């Protein structure tokens, strides 16, 4: 249960949420059993709504776990849209792929296994939505690259930005939290709120969700979609690269 929102209110919000489905509930239960740090259904719903609101066709997620938040995100994609999601742990990635298939989203979710700090150089933007979850010590190192990968008018959504309240100086809620992570998140919050290319607001929902929109011309979107499709076509072309033969 959260430290930010009182339990009765969290339960009330859960009761209002009409967007969950049996597949998602099943995965949430499995995640809870394994004590995996999944987002809750209310944050999941928020992700789906935001992705839908910006008409997302390309989404990047850092921190797949078993695909729970990925399903909320990918469920907003039209046919031909794509969620690219990164997970460090091979087993979790495998489970995630299975879950995307269960949710009928195998054609629009691509799981990349590896260290996001390395793999991030391999993905071609631009993205309409980027959801940053994953290891907290990666938040700051990844930020600049994520802003570059985001299209103007796109959203950078970050989870756990209130970190059980511990970003507040002197507030100690969870002894198991690494102080370095706490410092990292506090620094991250300062950076995204002061960032010249971003406009940021933070919702005290669950463990804190920051929503940042990238400034710039929204008329870039159709061109960036065109570029993304062209890059996809280029990468799919068989030019008999030595590496692949």
């Amino acid at each position, binding site marked *: 249960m959260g430290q930010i929102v009182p339990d009765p209110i969290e339960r009330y919000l859960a009761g209002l949420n009409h967007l969950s489905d049996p597949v998602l509930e099943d995965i949430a239960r499995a995640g809870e059993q394994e004590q995996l740090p999944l987002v809750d259904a209310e944050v999941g719903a928020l992700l789906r709504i935001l992705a839908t609101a910006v008409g997302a066709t390309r989404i990047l997620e850092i921190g797949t776990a078993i695909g729970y938040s990925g399903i909320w995100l990918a469920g907003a994609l039209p046919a031909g849209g794509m969620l690219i999601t990164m997970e460090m742990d091979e087993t979790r990635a495998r489970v995630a792929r299975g879950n995307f298939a269960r949710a009928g989203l195998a054609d629009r979710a691509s799981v990349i296994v590896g260290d996001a700090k390395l793999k991030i150089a391999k993905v071609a933007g631009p993205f309409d939505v980027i959801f940053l979850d994953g290891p907290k010590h990666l938040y700051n190192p990844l930020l600049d690259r994520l802003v570059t990968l985001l299209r103007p008018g796109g959203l950078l959504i970050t989870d756990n930005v209130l970190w059980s309240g511990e970003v507040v100086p002197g507030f100690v809620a969870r002894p198991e939290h690494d102080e370095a992570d706490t410092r990292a998140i506090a620094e991250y919050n300062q950076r995204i709120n002061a960032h010249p290319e971003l406009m940021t607001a933070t919702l005290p929902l669950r463990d804190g969700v920051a929503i940042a929109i990238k400034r710039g011309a929204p008329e870039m979107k159709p061109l960036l979609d065109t*570029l993304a499709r062209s890059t996809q076509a*280029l990468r799919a072309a068989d*030019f008999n690269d030595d590496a692949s033969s």
Partner: protein
Amino acid sequence: MTITEFGRKLRARETSAVEATDACLARIDADNGRLNAFILVMADEARGQAREADRELAGGHDRGPLHGVPMSIKDLIDVRGTPTTAASRVRAGRMAAAHDAPIVAHLRHAGAIFVGKTNLHEFALGVTNEDSAFGPARNPHDPARSPGGSSGGSAASIIAGMALASIGTDTGGSIRIPSAACGTVGLKPAFGEISTEGVVPLSRTLDHAGPLAASVADAHLLYHVLRGDAAPRPLVAAPARGLRVAVPRTYFTDLLDDEVRAAFESALERLRAAGARVRDVEIRHARDIPAVYLHTGLAEAAAYHAVTLEKTPELYTPSVRLRLEMGRHILAEDYVRADAGRQVLRREVDAALAEHDALVLPTLPIPAPVIGANSVTIGGSQEPVRNLLLRLTQLFNLTGHPAISLPNGRTSTGLPCSLQIVGGRTHTDALLGIALGCEAHLP
């Protein structure tokens, strides 16, 4: 009037350089307001050059076929004493060019007269000549229509009688596209044959400079002058009889306007009737051409413009700025992938030419589009105009093969149709010979 005809009249004293130049300047005066083919008219300088040309000729100093020929120069190319605007406010306030580009110096040395700098699509990044700091250029056949681009003003200036010939640049088709749209001959030579020094770059891997003219013979003359060749061999037409011609099909012929298709097939019939052997070929990776082109050309263009895009983005026309911004999202690894694609495509075109003397295909799949049209209905579906205009020309920028566009009749509403002929990578002269031979059989 062609350069060849003018030369005959000039030396027969039926005309003079001054008379020809005055005639061009008069047409500019009358029609440039409407057609917007010129950014800068060099009336005084041109008259001075013309008087000098006539004086020289009278004194027995004949510089050759270009002596006294009024020409226009695309405003992407340095002409000493004039600013090179690239049709952009980004370059406003730049000083006039201190030197001619080498290709212009060759023309000047050959006695050509420069009547002005022609309008173009801003920084050559476009194929309709619509986006220019000086407003769109217009097609003389129908001013509501685009003259093609990016060398739109150059092609229009010839058809409108404002110049006998022009020099343009071609990165995805920018000499051949306006030539096809306006009804001139346009040559993109083989890559690297003609210097692009003194020319504002768009994409150095794909940029070519070349002539637009009223005939293949004129294009040949200009080609050799631009190369600085002292005494080019005269052009001999390759006879159509026995000519081995290959038509690349599928991607290149699936999407054609009905009248363009009819004109193309009719041209093939004429060549067959004249004894040419016409076969079909396939370019296996044809569908990958647009992606390879985009990740090559736009990446290079974006890199060249990176500083001004950050400092003064508002000085670009919106459409050009957005496309350059798009280019800045291209990853290096995709640029490298595109290079691999380019090598593959080059080998495929070489292979197609191994058994044939030339490839033949239309230059444009549609007649000149209406200015402002973003898409056109063709083959039952809506296609973006830009993609269509580049579709049949951009391959040969990627591969470097020489390619020439010739007029091939008109549509029922009087708009030019075109034929494109492509030759072996080191055989531009052979291509010109083939083009001269084919020209005789076209309407």
